[in-house]
């Protein structure tokens, strides 16, 4: 290769590296042919599962948004707080954004669990009223009240509020038990 040609290629290489800067390669490090095939196959499998999970979640989100925008993953968790032996309470609103009546919506609180493993039974919750009928485009209010056991350790507990008529919807609930 002549010096001129070598210089031309080197000059081009410098320019190209400068233009390419900022477009870092996020891909996995190079490996052999079989490794590359394995990586591709694994990535395809992961993507397939991810897609299935995403589609399932999107289905839940759409249903929840249609029937009760206040119940859905985009909302912050329903926050409760109180001391052991006291009651923690909060109002809950359901909004029926569809054109159809939704009747006999029964809410139920799951058990609340702390990272330590401590559990507060969902059965200690009361909902008043415990059954809601929603006309098309209407809203309804119920009140969640949870009796915090005397022996409940202080900490953050997590659970979900479920609706019998909305099997795919779940509203996250966060309870803070003060010391």
């Amino acid at each position, binding site marked *: *290769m002549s010096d*001129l*040609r070598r210089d*031309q*290629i080197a*000059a*081009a*290489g*410098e*320019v*190209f590296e*400068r*233009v*390419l800067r900022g*477009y870092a*390669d*996020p*891909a*996995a*490090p*190079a*490996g*052999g*042919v079989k*490794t*590359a*095939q394995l*990586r*591709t*196959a*694994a*990535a*395809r499998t992961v*993507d*397939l599962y*991810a*897609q299935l999970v*995403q589609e399932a979640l999107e289905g839940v989100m759409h249903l929840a948004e249609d029937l009760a925008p206040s119940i859905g993953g985009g909302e912050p968790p329903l926050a409760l707080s109180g001391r052991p032996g006291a009651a923690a309470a909060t109002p809950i609103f359901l909004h029926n954004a569809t054109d159809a009546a939704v009747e006999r919506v029964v809410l139920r609180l799951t058990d609340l669990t702390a990272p330590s493993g401590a559990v507060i039974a969902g059965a200690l919750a009361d909902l008043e009223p415990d059954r809601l009928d929603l006309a098309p485009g209407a809203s309804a209010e119920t009140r969640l009240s949870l009796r915090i056991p005397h022996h409940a350790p202080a900490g953050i507990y997590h659970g979900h509020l479920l609706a019998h008529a909305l099997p795919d919807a779940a509203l996250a609930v966060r309870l803070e038990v003060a010391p």
Partner: protein
Amino acid sequence: MTAVEATLAEYARLTRQAMDVQLQALEPTSYLDELVREYPRRGGKGLRPALLLATCLAHGGTLHDGLDVAVAVEMLHNAFLIHDDVQDGSRRRRGEPTLHALHGLPLAVNAGDALATLALRPLQAPGALGARVGRRVLDEVLAMILKTTEGQALELGWRRDNVVDLGPADYLELVAKKTCWYTSVAPLRLGALIGSRGTAPLGPLSRYGFYLGAAFQIRDDLLSLEAAEHGKDALGDLREGKRTLPLLHLLSAASPGDRAWLGAYLARPENERSQLEAEHVRALMDRHGSVEFASDYAQALAAAAGDAFDAAFANVTPSEHVEFIRDLAPYLITRGR
């Protein structure tokens, strides 16, 4: 027809079929629909979708995986051509009058806008690619559009301000952005990204794409200097004052008198540059070895592309798709149109 040309033609056919489906989104009207279909109807080499699809297949993907994105890239290419012809005042494209020459500037610009927008539709839903790869594909396409417009701005700015003090490095920067990114770099990156589901390293492919695209562009520069029909204006680049590699070489090699004359020639608006003057520039290029210089440079870049190809495909299973991609470099610098 060579094997490379036959493969290019087959990829182009598949892409055009899929593109027709996308273009059905427009209501059939003589003011938009017909204009949008005009350049795709005229054909073209189909280099970009071919490179994308072959790279996708080489990395383990399927035609189905890559076709939507190949269509998007080809539609963007056609949209760029419409606007490019307007910006350059070109009169012929793919052997026929340019779109604005046929329908006027306003309708041509509008058709380019519509085509560029339609090009993004296949990218809306990631489909079989999944959300993760689909998002990266969109990032790549957006980066490609931005780089291309940066390159186009550089060229238009140099012409507006009559910048003549330019060397090969300036030219290569222009070409890397204006041509390489969307002609070869992005199709290679996208094909590998889709085929490997984001696991293939893209840096080595980008380097191959740059050398390949630059060699392709220099060949395009040289074709514009040939008297033979190749679908564009004869000596069109010289009339338009494009900063091609032969022109930049001439500017550096010409005598002070000739250089002053060239500067004045390039400073005038295109409609004040005569065909005779363009032919004089062409003769000066012969006298000063500018065509030979550019041709040698293209050969050097094609050789570098060969080395970059070896690095980029070292870990890819050998296949007919890999062979096609390898054979593109020598084909592109010897092609007749």
